[in-house]
């Protein structure tokens, strides 16, 4: 009995840090901001490996006042930004946050961040799940990767 409980506890301890296993973040980066900028953009691919739809509802980044989700809309020769209230990740689907599209807006860094810095980021989903990642600040990635 004790052994079974210990095993159960061990199983819980092992599985807890992995929860939720269903959203995986990859290729995350934050665009290094030129001097004076008070807003930085964050990009990544969010992969939902589960069978349930996931919805990203908020994010927090260490060293920033707040984080918002926005979408750049390029339409009729105009660039505009629209706030995105929730980002839906279809079951077994991926959503890319990429330059010229949806992106995280990291607002008011407490101190300037240069390329090479690492920013701990916390993503919260509608079902209460939390995903934590550390995102590198990079000068720029070749812009061509999102053009085809």
């Amino acid at each position, binding site marked *: 009995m004790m052994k079974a409980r210990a095993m159960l506890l061990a199983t819980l301890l092992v599985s807890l840090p992995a929860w939720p296993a269903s959203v995986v973040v990859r290729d995350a980066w934050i*665009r290094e*901001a*030129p*001097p*004076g*900028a*008070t*807003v*930085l*953009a964050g990009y990544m691919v969010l992969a939902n490996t589960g069978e349930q739809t996931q919805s990203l509802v908020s994010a927090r980044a260490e060293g920033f006042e707040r984080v918002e989700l*926005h979408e*750049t809309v*390029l339409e009729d*020769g*105009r*660039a*505009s*930004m629209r706030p995105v209230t929730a980002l839906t990740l279809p079951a077994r689907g991926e959503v890319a946050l990429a*330059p*010229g599209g949806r*992106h995280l*807006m*990291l*607002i008011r860094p407490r101190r300037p961040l240069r390329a090479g810095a690492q920013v701990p980021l916390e993503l919260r989903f509608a079902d209460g799940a939390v995903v934590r990642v550390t995102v590198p600040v990079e000068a*720029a990635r070749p*812009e*061509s990767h*999102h*053009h085809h």
Partner: protein
Amino acid sequence: MRQKSVSRAAIVAAMSIMLILGFAAQRLVQRTSTAAGARQAMTVIEPAQPLAEFALRDDRGDVFDRDRLRGRWTFLFFGYTQCPDVCPAAMMTFKQVRAQAGGRERNVQYVLVSVDPERDSGARLGEYVRYFDPEFIGATGSHAELAQLTKPMGVYYARSGAGKDYQVNHSSAIFLIDPEVRFRALLAQPHVPGAIAAGLETLRKQ
């Protein structure tokens, strides 16, 4: 009498069509591409449209007007420094175009015109553009001063959102001005730096 008014209506209609066609003919959408075949939409303004008088200030506080455009090719982008996504990408495009098309040594200049003069002081603009390239120029002015440059070329911008972290929606294209201070071409998104450089070479030869 009746016939006369009909023919007058026909003339008016024909003239309207000519006007419309004439206007359409002023904007020839061409394609320019890199040797590798990456394509970029380039709208050549035909005939090139002379810019009216305007006077802004550059990031060092000097007058930035028609005289600063004369005798060189100028790429203009209208944006602002608190723009985290589109404007840094446009500045990176400028940087890559400059690497291929050249800069001051070839009489080509790259200018970010801030459409957010309330937040973009000259000093802030200067720091911003020089982060991308020491040769890049920042310029701005009051909204009335900006309008002298933006209105004739059809550049759009409008403030969006409230509070100190408002955004500014703006034209996403790059505007190319020729050495005779005429609006010569419009380069729409998505931007392909190699193709923009190739487009400039084509126009230089004309």
